[in-house]
């Protein structure tokens, strides 16, 4: 019986949409972890040396934008595979 349910699911499953969804979720996970780490180190650095907070903030923004760029690459690819 399990076999027949499985077979039915395999027939209706749209793998492209599923792949795009899982992909987008993984992308968000990766970006969140990466930028979270940057934010954490930046805040730690400011706590150690408040006078350098301007420079640290600037570096943090740049690094976060670069990581976000890669994350959005992947999001665009997920969107493309969903639409092909």
């Amino acid at each position: 019986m399990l076999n027949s349910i499985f077979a039915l699911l395999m027939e209706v499953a749209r793998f492209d949409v599923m792949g795009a969804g899982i992909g987008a979720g993984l992308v968000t996970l990766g970006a969140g972890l990466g930028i979270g780490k940057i934010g954490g180190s930046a805040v730690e650095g400011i706590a150690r040396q408040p006078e350098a907070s301007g420079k640290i903030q600037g570096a943090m923004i740049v690094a976060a934008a670069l990581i976000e760029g890669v994350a959005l690459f992947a999001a665009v690819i997920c969107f493309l595979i969903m639409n092909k």
Partner: protein
Amino acid sequence: MSVKLLTSKLLSIFLASALFWHFEAKASDEGHGGEKNFDISTMIFHHIGDAHEWHFADIGDTHLSISLPVILFSSDRGLETFSFSSLKAHDGHALVHQDYSIDHHGKIISTLPGREIFAFMPDAHAAHQEGAVKVYNISITKNIASLFLSVLILFAVFIPVAKGYSKRKGSAPKGIQSFFEPIVVFIRDEIALPNIGAKSDRYMPFLLTVFFFIWFNNLLGLIPGGANLTGNIAVTFSLAFITLLITVFSGNKDYWMHILWTPGIPMWLRPIMLPVELVGIISKPFSLMVRLFANITAGHVIILSLLGLTFIFKSIGVGVAATLFSTVMSLLELFVAILQAYVFTLLSAMYFGQATAEHEHDHADGHH
């Protein structure tokens, strides 16, 4: 009342009214049939995509939009110009004019066989016809009209700023100058000088142009009824391509030697490094293009999806929550607007800096 108090009161009234702007401009996008199920993906594509008319709002049954000129060039008929309103009636159905009509997406199609409408690439949806006459679609679309508008705004802002500097030579800036001077100085001192160094004055015009162009266009796209210009990959491609051209044409010997013959690495690694470095020349501006496009488009899609939730659920409670969320997202998008302009400019400056870097260093193989 002090100036501070008055300004803060005005600002809070302004911000509170912003909650209602969204409602008015987007709420009228309810399905034209009334009972039809609200199709959110059509609504989203309609708002972020390009079109031959500039659609502002639907007030009741009135379709508030400007029909833009359609310009088509073909080798057999030459240049044909007419307004888009001859292809699309007021109630939205397609008309035929001079053997052209529109499909359900609003794209121009030819009713005569053997003619293919060609914008930059052949239409992906239409079947490729062998030997078809190519009709080049060089119309003024919504994005192009927005591009002209933003260029006019840039001129209207910066020509007085420049004039102010020549009029008030040596004295303190006044008026609009005093708003833009800190930004221009920031770009020179924090973006250009640290990354490019001595030659930064040559690249400043481009960096300033690209910064303000991207920033103003991002902001224009956030206005209800605005066009999503920087979310158009052709536009971001052009900006990134110009960065690539400037990088390649200002590359000095050091730059090319680093790419073709990266110093200080063992011989067996060189066959791998060469293609990697060559791809790197292209991939860096490519990332500029995708980063700007995806950030702006994703922001618009998020705001549109949140607003669309109201129409899917058709409930006041969801409406209030969705409006609050989308206002917060719009504020975030305001920040993203200037951040993406800053990142594009900063990375372009870094690439120019790499291309023009003059440095003496000791190489392991000492061929310098």
